[in-house]
């Protein structure tokens, strides 16, 4: 690289170069946090919808407020996520792997939670609305774990 035709760096030069490289790596890790916030926001949106459904006496019947409220949560959430996505300027291989891993894990785990909830009649007609909320809280565990892993990097 460029040092080939230049005087060899001293120990102090090398230490300064390594410190600068660490500094730059830290900047990328901080930029990665946006992906962590996106994963966390996805979990919060899912839980917010679940909270609204939980307030219904019978989720199968719906309600005059619940429908528009869920629509508003999804709309605001979607706009927010698109905005944060468009602001991403750097990401590491580890963070993007965790992000896509979280999506896959959530999809699979959520499918299992839904399947078990239906099979066990946890969501059957006549069951209280909070059953849906509890299932949602369990379903978002992969998203919360991934968000924590990305934000702690």
């Amino acid at each position, binding site marked *: 690289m460029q*040092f080939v035709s230049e005087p*060899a760096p001293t*120990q102090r*030069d090398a230490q300064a*170069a*390594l410190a600068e*490289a660490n500094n*730059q790596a830290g900047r990328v890790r901080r930029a990665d946090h946006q992906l962590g916030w996106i994963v966390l926001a996805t979990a919060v949106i899912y839980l917010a919808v679940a909270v609204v459904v939980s307030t219904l006496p019978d989720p199968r019947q719906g309600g005059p407020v619940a429908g528009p409220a869920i629509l508003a949560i999804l709309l605001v959430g979607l706009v927010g996520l698109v905005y944060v996505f468009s602001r991403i300027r750097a990401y590491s291989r580890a963070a993007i792997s965790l992000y896509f891993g979280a999506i896959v894990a959530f999809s699979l785990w959520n499918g299992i939670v839904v399947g078990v909830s239906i099979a066990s009649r946890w969501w059957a007609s006549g069951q209280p609305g909070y059953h849906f909320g509890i299932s949602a809280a369990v379903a978002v565990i992969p998203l919360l774990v991934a968000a924590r892993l990305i934000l702690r990097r």
Partner: protein
Amino acid sequence: MMALLAAASKVEFSFVRDHVEVTDSMLSKQVSALEQAGYVKVDKGFVGKRGRTWLSLTKQGRRTFDRHMAALREIANSDGAGVAALRRS
């Protein structure tokens, strides 16, 4: 700049410019030189109507940078002993 790219999968041009603290034209020249050397890959895309340029290290660039860092670590840990390694990198 190489350190920033080495830590990332992809980095937007403006992110590098802001953190390396150089002008657009200066960075463009450096990117072109590194691209010609086979160290950096440039991808252009759009977000809405805004054009975006993404930079990433090629395999060759990453290998070369890793060798360079290893040589620097050798120098930093044992005064002068890693100079030959750095010249090889």
